[in-house]
């Protein structure tokens, strides 16, 4: 019976061998066929399909910031001494660690969750409710985790880019993320004055970044969108995304977009070579499996 099953297995492996050979031929042929290249404009339309509405909301938010948030923030910056601002910043950052730890666990980052818990305990006790960042001196760096990143780790796609009134830039995945983070942040339950101070503190801390955008951006909407999406993607992948490959794609984009077919053929050939290498590897592995099964079968026969 066992010998019969092994025979069937060997037969299947034999078919698998043929299948690998056929798939190899198919991959090489399909690899050589011209592949449609998604150009920059198509990618942008996919990422930001509501650009027209988003731009209007962006302008509205900008006015709101210029005429309301910025003057209040400037007054706060002027009145509050630096050590008070630092203490308030540390206090809110420490409270946010409840949310960070929760998301560490949801992302199965148990070692990091232990470190972040240590950070919370140290700063809440020795750091006088988080006013002083004692944990940093002990080598416990602040980590940045939220529910949007957790959803990304779980494989939820980012969805289209959105600009919401008052809230600002987000992705569709970031909407439930922000709701969850608000629900798990203790600041949400302390009371309106503390929440207002939290918003004011956040605006004051964003001053440098907003000034940088004002100075550097030729188109502030696009500058914000690109920076925001890249920053979020980098956080979601813990800086381990396919960034290096992306650079190469960017570098060769001019070649891909040029009218000459030679660069296109070259890239197509490179892609085909990679697929070919992978297929060869799988094929060789299958042959090895087959040989092992064959020798086992022979041993059984003996």
């Amino acid at each position, binding site marked *: 019976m066992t010998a019969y099953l092994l025979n069937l297995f060997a037969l299947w492996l034999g078919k698998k061998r043929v299948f690998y050979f056929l798939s190899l031929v198919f991959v090489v042929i399909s690899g050589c066929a011209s592949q449609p290249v998604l*150009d*920059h*404009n198509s990618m*942008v339309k996919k990422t930001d399909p509501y650009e027209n509405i988003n731009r209007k909301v962006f302008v509205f938010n900008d006015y709101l910031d210029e005429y309301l948030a910025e003057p209040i923030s400037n007054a706060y910056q002027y009145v509050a001494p630096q050590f008070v601002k630092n203490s308030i910043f540390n206090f809110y950052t420490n409270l946010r660690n409840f949310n960070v730890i929760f998301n560490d666990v949801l992302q199965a980052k148990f070692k990091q969750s232990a470190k972040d818990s240590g950070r919370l305990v140290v700063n809440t006790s020795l750091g006088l409710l988080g006013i002083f960042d004692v944990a940093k001196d002990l080598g416990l760096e*602040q980590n940045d985790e939220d529910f949007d990143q957790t959803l990304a780790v779980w494989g939820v796609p980012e969805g289209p880019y959105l600009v919401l009134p008052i809230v600002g830039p987000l992705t569709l995945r970031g909407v439930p993320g922000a709701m969850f983070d608000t629900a798990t942040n203790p600041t949400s339950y302390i009371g309106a004055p503390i929440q207002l101070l939290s918003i004011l503190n956040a605006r004051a801390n964003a001053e440098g970044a907003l000034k*940088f955008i004002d*100075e*550097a*951006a*030729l*188109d502030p909407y*696009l*500058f914000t*969108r*690109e*920076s925001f999406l*890249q*920053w979020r*993607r*980098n*956080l979601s992948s813990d*800086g381990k*995304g396919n*960034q*290096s*490959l*992306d*650079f*190469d794609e*960017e*570098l*060769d*984009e*001019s070649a891909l*977009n*040029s*009218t000459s077919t030679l660069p296109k053929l070259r890239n197509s050939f*490179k892609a085909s070579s990679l697929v070919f290498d992978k297929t060869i590897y799988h094929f060789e592995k299958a042959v090895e499996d087959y040989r092992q099964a064959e020798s086992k079968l022979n041993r059984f026969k003996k």
Partner: protein
Amino acid sequence: MLLTKVKFLYLCVLCLVVFTVSAQELLTARQVVEGFQSQLLTAMKKGKQLGYSGRYEALYEPVSDTHDLTKIVRIVVGKEWEGLSKEQQDILVTTFSKYSVASYAHNFKEYSGESFVFDSEEETARGGVVVHSHLVIPNDKAVKFDYNLKEIAGHWKIINIIANGVSDLAVKRSEYTNILQHEGFDALIAKINEKITIYSKQ
């Protein structure tokens, strides 16, 4: 006898020139990045004395030598490059080069104990190198700087800088192609020049 001495001296100078050129060619991607970072820190340390124009002068050569600004411009404008006349391409490269130096001179204006630390180096699939480093800022969070370099005519040149995961090239590409497509070449040049003026006044 004198002729022999002159010949010998000429030979020595020639050897020195050849050696210097070879040494320059042998600079690795990491050395190019570290050399540039060192010059940036020097300009920051003298930042207040030099003022904006002094920093601009001090950084012009280091930026031009270590960055492939022409290639950066070509990537940033993508397929729009082909639609520009030779004159427009030259104007764009010149304006962009001035803007790049101005941006460094403006954003790295003073020194308060910052230092660059090399982290690692990796080769990319298409023959490039990424040098990972970070800028240590006292009493603040470090900023991660990743430099993407390509070997061009025997020299490693910076093509892209990624700060905390945000690619400068990708941000610029999005802006520049959009402006070129919707507002045209003159509007793009006017906007870049406007930024250079803003940088020079602050």
